[in-house]
């Protein structure tokens, strides 16, 4: 038995030469639409569940109830300003965290004794809940943004360090041999070989670091709700709980999800895609171009 290539499950059907441009554009559109479709489906499920559920409306608000609350929150600007404040804090803090964590990770990667000594400590610090830092941060910095940034940094840095370290660990040893043979100084080795080689693993660490940064920020924003510190979205979430206002809680959750999706779609996914394509890899489930 033989099979024409089109009927052979191993291969794609014979097709005319494709226009790579058109294909890529449709993929990019898809990467924005697909999550939208997912969200619409989820909201529909939520609406149906809230109809079907025997729970009181104030305990399980329907999407309609939640979105009815939206205009008021948008009108007084509190949701938008809280999101903006938190986003700014998270992004700026995150950049600082990356700038601090990267050299520390490189030092740990190159100084065996230090890594043996501090490596487990770094992993353990990752496990420490952010609120554990709050008392110390307050004593040092009072009610200032510095306190919030301290909590955020301490939450994000260990995770980024670990991400880069595990990226470095996975570098094939022959790249180190290559550096040595090419006569690279340690510094040149780091810049030209180690960092780019560790990049795919590092980006994974960066994504997790971002999650840690954001979640630590939420914890830090509970220190003070309003007052001298501008209220972020974490404060708004706490306020929703305090006022037993589940629609508000839901709106905050949705805002956070929205921010998360946007950051993923605008920053991490394209970064990762470019990086992988650059080395002839492809994100699982996405076809290689060409």
């Amino acid at each position, binding site marked *: *038995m*033989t*099979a*024409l*290539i*089109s*009927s*052979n499950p*191993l*291969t*794609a*059907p*014979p*097709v*005319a*030469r*494709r226009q*790579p441009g058109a294909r890529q554009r449709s993929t990019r559109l898809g990467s924005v639409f697909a999550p939208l479709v997912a969200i619409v489906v989820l909201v529909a499920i939520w609406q149906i569940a809230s109809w079907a559920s025997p729970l009181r409306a104030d305990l399980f608000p329907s999407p309609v109830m939640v979105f009815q609350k939206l205009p008021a929150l948008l009108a007084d600007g509190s949701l938008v300003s809280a999101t903006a404040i938190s986003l700014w804090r998270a992004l700026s803090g995150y950049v600082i965290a990356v700038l601090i964590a990267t050299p520390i990770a490189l030092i740990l990667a190159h100084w065996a004794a230090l890594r043996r000594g501090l490596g487990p400590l770094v992993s353990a610090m990752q496990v420490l809940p952010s609120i554990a830092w709050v008392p110390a941060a307050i004593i040092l910095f009072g009610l200032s943004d510095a306190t919030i940034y301290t909590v955020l940094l301490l939450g994000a840095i260990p995770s980024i360090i670990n991400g880069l370290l595990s990226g470095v660990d996975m570098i094939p040893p022959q790249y180190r041999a290559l550096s040595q043979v090419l006569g690279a100084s340690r510094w040149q080795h780091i810049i030209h070989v180690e960092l780019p080689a560790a990049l795919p693993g590092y980006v994974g660490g960066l994504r997790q670091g971002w999650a840690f940064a954001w979640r630590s920020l939420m914890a830090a924003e509970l220190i003070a709700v309003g007052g001298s510190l501008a209220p972020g979205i974490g404060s708004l979430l706490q306020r929703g709980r305090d006022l037993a206002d589940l629609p508000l809680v839901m709106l905050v959750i949705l805002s956070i999800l929205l921010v998360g999706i946007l950051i993923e779609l605008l920053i991490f996914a394209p970064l990762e895609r470019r990086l992988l394509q650059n080395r002839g890899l492809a994100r699982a489930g996405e076809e290689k*171009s*060409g």
Partner: protein
Amino acid sequence: MSIELNEVSLSYGGDELVLDSISTQIHDGEFVAVLGASGCGKSSLLNVIAGLLPPSDGWLQVPDDGAAFMFQDANLLPWLTAAANIELALKLCDYPAGQRAARVRQLLELVQLDHAGDRKPHELSGGMRQRVALARSLAQDRQVLLMDEPFAALDAITRDMLHEQLHSLWAATGKTIVFVTHNVREAIRLAERILVLSSRPGRIIEIRRISDTLRNDPAHSVALADELTTILRREQMKNDRVDQL
């Protein structure tokens, strides 16, 4: 069970054609060698036949149980020992579990690696890795066997020995074998038919049928080798001229 290529073309995304209208038919049990300069598209052609790359144009017909394939760069799984790499191929062919260990040992012996079965790929030399890959491709019990420069990293003596093994395996099983090589004499020694590819784009520029009488006659086979080399050299010089324009 024959393989048929009809006007198969291939390009990797860009404009440049790597394979240009390759048409040929490889009948059941045939032993075919593909010759060509480095970078002419030999591996690409083999990948198309194996169904790993869809052709950009044209169509091809292959046996629908696929083909055993030996990659140019060994492509061993780094977390498995040499023996386990071979065993995996057996397992995925539904080779009876009880007889696998014995078969693995047999295959390792065939490629003269019986002492290195429990080493990981990173503990093997380049030639040893290639031989493990060879053993793995033989482990797959398929009618078609595609091999991409199976002996490139081997010394002459080991290579001679493996040539014999491969030949007797072919004679015994009647497999259809397509193998890529850059070694003209190797092609003449093993193949029934030689396809010569041009470079950029890869086209079939020469097809030679090699009879047993020719193969066993030293003078004739040296002459043929010289002739094929000349063809290849002419082809390459044409390309160089194109570059200089």
